[in-house]
């Protein structure tokens, strides 16, 4: 029991008195609304007290930072030794444009890099593919071959700075480029650090960056985990992501549960397919969550995430190494919480969400720019977003003490609720035969669709508020400058690519692709073949076409 019997008795007595007062008060001044709930529509009580957390066990459920179950964080000293990594997701236009933005951010105090690729790159198409028309450089940087990649990392000390790459179906190709670029610059693979997102299950569930069917997609991921474990020990070969699940309209609980269950699926596959011991690779599994606008719900979700994963790793996977128990995660503020209307209000939303991520103990953070509803962030907007993090770290005092909200009746009760409701989903998906099976049934997709539809109806009915959208609406559109990616970027990139195609060694290209195809057919690890291929200037699409040919193509079933 968390509290002494005497305290609970006293509390219960005092609570009755308070409840009497509440009845009298609401008779005169009724509550503004009948039901109060989070943005995920989880009902919240008027007040939380000792009775809401009385069944907790301090040592089992809360404990200390750096100790199981890591509710209070992985780091013994919280943010005192090191703030979270200020990692702004950025990429635009050409490799040169993006490299310039990276240097600007580093000059302004960013501490890690994070790469946004354009849609053709994300989907494994080259800029000159008919499918890529009109998309080049629009949502991120266009990378076709290693030549582009060398420009991207020009002047970046690859042995000192960690780089995250949001790339999924073509993750092997882009990671191979990073490895090859490091080797060309004389940095050994053991010295490079960073993350590839490389989480395909959430693509089927939510983000829809699709290429091959689920089974071979998971196989390619296990290849990277194996290769990283053996050759690139400082690399996080997967970032198991809830972010996109949430953006697709899920609740906080769905985000947490589906993400963690995805993690279970990957870990099981690596153990089964590659024969690795859990403690060999689990310490490099990383996670990525959303920080939405409901302040306490997000803090509770992030705290619960660490406790859930620690329990799963220790009890289900029998991991012995405490580093396997750690859930290390990056957080991004919620793009879907931002509004096109009155865009300067987005600065306030992002700051609130960033503070929640910090109070939830994130280890890395991206803060959205005020203009991101409309376009890629301008230099000015991205600076405000970065300064938001620096301000939280260095002015607000939020980082002074570790896990400052621990012990709050409300926060602990909500954390418990997040965890309990997630277990229900996890068990349900276990019963379906795992996440791949659940995806094939459309289960997570439709659960999210339900939540998204419900939320939109609540917005339309004014039950949930978005300032500037359904309340305090103004005619003033709050004009902001837009960063536009000129269509000439596409023309120039196509020229660059055709120049590469002309000058490269055709025989070496063909051999690389034949070798890769043979490896795919034999079920060998593709990574060494990808590194060889990219060094021979094989393009992203050429590698992905091999995957499409050998493993088949997956089409969005269009569930709604």
């Amino acid at each position, binding site marked *: 029991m968390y509290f002494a019997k005497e305290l609970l008795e006293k509390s219960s007595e005092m609570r009755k008195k308070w409840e009497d007062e509440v009845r009298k008060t609401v008779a005169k001044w009724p509550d503004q609304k009948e039901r109060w709930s989070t943005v995920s529509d989880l009902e919240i009580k008027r007040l939380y007290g000792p009775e809401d957390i009385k069944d907790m066990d301090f040592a089992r459920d809360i404990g200390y930072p750096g100790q199981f179950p890591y509710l209070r964080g992985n780091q013994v000293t919280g943010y005192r030794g090191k703030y979270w990594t200020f990692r702004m997701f950025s990429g635009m236009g050409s490799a040169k444009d993006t490299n310039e933005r990276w240097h600007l951010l580093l000059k302004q105090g960013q501490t890690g890099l994070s790469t946004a690729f354009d*849609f053709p790159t994300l989907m494994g198409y080259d800029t000159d593919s008919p499918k890529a028309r*009109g998309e080049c450089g629009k949502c991120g940087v266009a990378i076709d071959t290693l030549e582009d990649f060398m420009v991207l990392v020009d002047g970046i000390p690859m042995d000192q700075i960690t780089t995250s790459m949001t790339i999924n179906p073509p993750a092997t190709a882009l990671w191979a480029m990073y490895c090859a670029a490091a080797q060309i610059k004389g940095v050994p693979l053991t010295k490079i650090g960073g993350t590839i997102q490389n989480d395909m299950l959430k693509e089927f569930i939510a983000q*829809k960056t699709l290429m091959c069917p689920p089974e071979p997609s998971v196989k390619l991921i296990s290849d990277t985990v194996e290769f990283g474990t053996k050759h690139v020990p400082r690399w996080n070969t997967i970032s198991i992501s809830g972010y996109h699940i949430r*953006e697709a309209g899920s609740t906080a609980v769905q985000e947490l549960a589906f993400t963690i269950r995805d993690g279970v699926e990957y870990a099981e596959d690596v153990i089964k397919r590659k024969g690795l011991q859990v403690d060999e690779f689990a310490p490099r599994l990383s996670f990525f969550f959303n920080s939405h606008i409901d302040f306490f719900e997000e803090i509770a979700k992030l705290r619960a995430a660490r406790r859930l994963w620690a329990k799963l790793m220790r009890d289900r996977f029998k991991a012995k190494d405490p580093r396997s128990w750690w859930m290390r995660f990056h957080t991004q503020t919620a793009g879907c919480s931002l509004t*096109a209307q009155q865009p300067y209000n987005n600065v306030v939303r992002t700051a609130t969400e960033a503070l929640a991520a910090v109070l939830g103990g994130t280890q890395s953070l991206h803060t959205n720019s005020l203009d991101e509803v409309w376009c890629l962030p301008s230099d000015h907007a991205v600076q405000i977003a970065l300064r938001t993090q620096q301000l939280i770290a260095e002015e607000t005092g939020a980082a002074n003490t570790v896990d400052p909200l621990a012990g709050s009746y409300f926060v602990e009760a909500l954390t418990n609720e997040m965890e309990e409701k997630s277990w229900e989903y996890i068990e349900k998906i276990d019963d379906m035969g795992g996440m791949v099976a659940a995806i094939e049934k459309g289960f997570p997709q439709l659960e999210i669709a339900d939540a998204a539809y419900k939320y939109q109806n609540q917005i339309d009915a004014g039950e949930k508020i978005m300032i500037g959208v359904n309340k305090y609406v103004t005619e003033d559109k709050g004009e902001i400058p837009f960063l536009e990616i000129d269509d000439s970027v596409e023309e120039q990139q196509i020229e660059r690519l055709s120049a590469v195609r002309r000058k490269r060694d055709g025989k070496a290209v063909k051999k690389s692709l034949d070798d890769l195809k043979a490896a795919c057919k034999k079920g060998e690890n593709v990574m060494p073949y990808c590194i060889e291929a990219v060094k021979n200037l094989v393009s992203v699409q050429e590698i992905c076409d091999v995957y499409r040919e050998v493993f088949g193509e997956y089409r969005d079933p269009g569930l709604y």
Partner: protein
Amino acid sequence: MADRKLRVMVAKPGLDGHDRGARVLARCFRDAGFEVIYTGCHQTPEQIAASAIQEDVDLVGLSCLSGAHKYLFPKVVELLREQGADDITVIGGGIIPDQDLKSMHDAGLKAIFVPGATLDSILDWIRTNVKPR
């Protein structure tokens, strides 16, 4: 045939996977009593035009959040026109900046819905402007 249900296709052209809006609308149209065909993500304009004709729809609603609407939306209208199906109404939605609205209308998009549009406002527009063909 005047009472025939409206046949509506919700389509996602291009490589953009942001389908939250498209799926919410597909559901909204279904609940409003329309017959709904949702293409799923990653359709080429050619695929969309072909399915719209094959499915004999009255309306195509395009959704794009990647910034590629400037190429993709007019292309769908153009392909329908080329194939003699210019009586299929085409509307669009997504992140469409103000400065692009005129070129979208000039290209033959009958309406563009931008962030903040309510489901009801979209339904009202359709009920007023689109009749079963």
